[in-house]
């Protein structure tokens, strides 16, 4: 897979907390259009790794390149505007604002960046309605986000990410705490999202991973242990040993 420039790549990316190397010299490539899952045991450094990609954390060493541009020193908010959206592992919606207003913040950001001057009410509403409809929350626009069920709050998170129209959407454990029915709907949603965006997914639910991922990256102790297609990963003895049930 050397021919195309990847949408995202990291070289020697590292981050230490005190003496602990949470992410250790990771070289990672993600081609555009893929759904990639990162799996690994708790404490493998997955969340830290995506934190370095989206700029919530600063690396101790190494580089992050997005769309051919070195973004290592770029602050988080500018990375988002460059096309990297991140949905939080712990649900982080604006609890005291309505679902509509939550998503409106994303749409407003995108409209402001499009340089069309002050975003008009109509375009704002259209953008919000579309994002809410895609995640199936169309009927909940007026509900305060804090009053939504947990599953709906997770979907609202995704809608906020979607409304940014990102080129890379990072989902950190999106199905945690969802019911089986909600998970099925979620899988369908991510497939649809992947039609126009690259998706990077941290996920513990192996069913979701196997259903969605084109390729899987396995992390352990801050390093990449293995990388490949789902079938190959499932068959890899080292992965089985470390993670799948060894």
């Amino acid at each position, binding site marked *: 897979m050397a021919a195309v420039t990847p949408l995202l790549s990291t070289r020697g990316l590292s981050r230490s907390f005190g003496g602990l190397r949470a992410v250790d010299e990771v070289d990672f490539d993600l081609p555009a259009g893929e759904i990639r899952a990162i799996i690994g045991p708790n404490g493998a450094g997955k969340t830290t790794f995506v934190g370095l990609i989206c700029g919530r954390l600063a690396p101790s060493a190494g580089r992050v390149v997005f769309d051919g541009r070195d973004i290592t020193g770029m602050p988080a908010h*500018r990375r988002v505007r460059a096309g990297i959206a991140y949905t939080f592992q712990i649900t*982080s*919606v604006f609890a*005291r604002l309505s679902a509509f207003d939550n998503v409106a*913040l994303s749409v407003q950001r995108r409209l*402001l960046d499009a340089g069309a001057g002050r*975003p008009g009410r109509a375009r704002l509403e259209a953008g919000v309605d579309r994002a809410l409809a895609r995640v199936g929350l169309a009927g909940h626009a007026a509900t305060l986000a804090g009053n939504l069920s947990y599953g709906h709050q997770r979907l609202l998170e995704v809608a906020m990410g979607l409304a940014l129209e990102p080129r890379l959407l990072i989902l950190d454990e999106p199905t945690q705490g969802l019911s089986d029915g909600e998970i099925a709907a979620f899988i369908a949603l991510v497939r649809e999202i992947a039609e126009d965006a690259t998706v990077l997914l941290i996920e513990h639910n192996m069913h979701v991973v196997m259903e969605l991922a084109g390729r899987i990256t396995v992390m352990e102790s801050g390093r990449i242990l293995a990388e490949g297609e789902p079938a190959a990963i499932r068959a890899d003895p080292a992965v089985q040993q470390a993670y799948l049930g060894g």
Partner: protein
Amino acid sequence: MRTDGLARIVALHLGLVLLLLALNWLLPEYHRGVFSRILVLAVFAMGYNVMFGYTGLLSLGHAMFFAAGLYGAGLTVYHLGWPAPAGFAAGLAAGLALALAVGVLALRTTGVAFMIVTLMFAQVIYLLTLYFTTYTRGEEGLVLAPEDRFIALPGAVLDPTDPSTRYLLALALFAAALAATVAIVRAPFGRTLVAIRENEERMRMLGYDVFANKLAAVAVSGVLCAAAGAAYALLFGYVGAGFASIQYSILPLLWVLLGGAATTLGPIVGTLAMFYVVDVTSGYTSAYLLVVGLALILLILYFPRGLVGTLRERWLPWLP
């Protein structure tokens, strides 16, 4: 919210301004004087509200911005002989410059440290007014001569020492500040500030430059407070260090809390209510600070949303 309600919002605010305009001819002389003062100080409270109410930044040093406007206008008019409008502009410029300088530094801190840092910067400004007592006459203050405060317009000269003119000028300033607040609150900028107050980290990950937006909020707040200070100097002709003291940092907090933080009408309601509470109680007791102290504690304990905030929560959810 989706329900736009622009028409009734405009109607309500315009109605209030028209009512206040009518009061110029209806109020007894004493109360018209009190109202002139309240309108100017309400602008101070509105500036405070932009930071405390909408952005969630509790400053304990806003007297410095009021003082920047007060002295920016007062010193240029008194010592340099600038005409009143130029003095007013100097006050605004001083407020903006101070707000940007203080903002860049203080916004590096959060929470308790932010409160103490703003308190200390304000104390520095207060001491500055005392240190340069040759020019400011410290606590005793400067009195601007009436003719220095005249505002020359093409074809007319406005005299702020005339009670009616003074009231109308104060009302004009108030109306402008009110319009500005409503516009900001309803603009993307206002929604951004509220969302930063609610969840700063999420806003960063939605692509918003949190620091720049907060700094802009401090700048807007500082300019509004400075406008109030500059207008106070020109309308009432007195410029004293007392306005830079800690007490004048606490008062806007009290007014906004009483009226309702993060509401456009809270500041005027709170300022008005507090003025008359003090006015009425001072008929029975000289213990004016006792009223302020009790009001602060009771509000924060039992009535944290304030008058307009409670109104909005219970009955009128469309209030901005």
